[in-house]
């Protein structure tokens, strides 16, 4: 694996985002990503798509889109700043299966983006449930303050644990963990 190039690793990135990578390939990819900013950025982009897909999955049971939804999304999408996509390396014939996977992922991400835009739209005034929510929270910041959770859970206790890190330890990694990755909910391995 030592003679692998970035484009080879980027195909592995696609596999590990789908949690289909393990063993020597995973170790090799970990080592490469730790030192290659380009591949790291590529991995971040793929995770974003993956997150959009999860968001779409979570939104599915909510309700049907309102009339005019498609046109609204199209206009909103046109107004949004474009995300810079890192070009995927040209794949030789033997790797077409991976390319198909990638194209499928992009297509799925586009669908996810529509759901995401729709959910975002639901937060705007004009939508009855949202108006109730805004009415509850539109007061000045001081008036919005509410107390912490009234039940213990690993989420809230991890948050409390992490927030103590700053100023308490030399490195404060727990705070970065909490800020950067804990909420992503990715399963951890030992």
């Amino acid at each position, binding site marked *: 694996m030592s003679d692998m190039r970035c484009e080879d690793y980027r195909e592995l990135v696609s596999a590990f985002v789908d949690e289909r990578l393990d063993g020597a390939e995973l170790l090799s990819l970990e080592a490469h990503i730790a030192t290659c900013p380009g591949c790291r950025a590529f991995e971040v982009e793929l995770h974003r798509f993956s997150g959009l897909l999860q968001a779409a999955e979570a939104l599915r049971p909510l309700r049907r889109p309102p009339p005019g939804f498609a046109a609204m999304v199209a206009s909103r999408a046109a107004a949004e700043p474009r995300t810079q996509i890192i070009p995927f390396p040209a794949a030789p014939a033997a790797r077409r299966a991976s390319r198909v996977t990638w194209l499928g992922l992009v297509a799925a991400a586009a669908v996810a983006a529509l759901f995401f835009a729709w959910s975002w739209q639901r937060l705007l005034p004009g939508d009855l449930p949202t108006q109730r929510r805004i009415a509850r929270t539109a007061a000045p910041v001081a008036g919005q303050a509410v107390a912490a959770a009234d039940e213990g*859970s690993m989420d809230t206790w991890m948050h409390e644990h992490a927030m103590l890190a700053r100023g308490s330890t030399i*490195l404060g990694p727990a705070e970065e963990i909490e800020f950067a990755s804990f909420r992503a909910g990715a399963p951890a391995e030992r």
Partner: protein
Amino acid sequence: MHTCRRPVVCLVLAVLVALPAARSLAQGGEAHLPSVAPPAYRGRKVVVDFTRRGPQVTSMSVLSQPGGLERRELPATHGVLIFDGESAWQYLPERGVVLKRPSRGDGGEVLQPGQLQRALASYEVRAVPSERIAGRRSQVIEFSPRQAGSRPRRLVWVDVETGLILRTEIYGAEKDRLSWLSVFEELEFGPALDAAAFRMQVPPGVLVVESGEEPCLEPAAAERLAGLPVGLPDYLPEGFARQCIRARRQRDYGEVQVVFGDGLSLLSLFEGTSFRERADDTGGASTVAVGLSAGRWHELGLVTGISWRAPWAHMALLGELSHAEMHKVAGSVRLQTELSPASRRP
């Protein structure tokens, strides 16, 4: 490569080469230390969590200004963390909330000589060859736990001129495998920063959840506030000491948090009158016996948790220790009245 074995030699070696401010530690003690405060800087930081199924890479921008002002942004999620000198504000877009709390100290990204000195009780410290990080001259310091396999090993790259931590590598307690990497990829000192960057603009419709100042309490005061008897561990790994007890009460719910530290790692013991399992913990999470109770492991990346039901409360222990040490600490938790006298001392 120079390896040192004696704490005093290690301290002098490590801090003298790494921190200009710490030079006076060896010369005259902490009272004469100048403050370690890097000038304003702007940078881009990458954090790689290798404990996840496939490394999880997070990129964030960081702005910092003396006086405890800091702003971090996660472009991928639009999350924002701001320290405005008095409060910490954390915007969680996916939850639609901003968490506000009193700011708990500054200098989280600076190697503090006092903390370094404390860590020497639990870690072998040595200086190893350095390299440039984001164009800055650095010195790398390695912290290897004296109690091998009990807690993570860490490598810290420190900016020679400012004391800023440029890169951190944390190797897991279980396998001594790289578990956590945090590194500045870009760094610029002395940029002109807009003061508005350090003020949180709460987006419309977002809920602000504010928590107040929580002083450290004595066990008896914590019991009165939370309405819970306080349990403490009879066993702590070498170098760990109790730092603080916090207590909270909201309507019928009471909670106590006891915090222990060794200078590098934190350990939190929580107890609450009620506890809600995470949805993803009800199925595959592994179980463990804690005393006579059935407990559960929670893998939270570098941090591991154990939750169990004690006779007096729902309990959880969170920390970066090995599973064996976590289990040993959890299994030794007793009500304060049952503890040996040595354990009751703060």
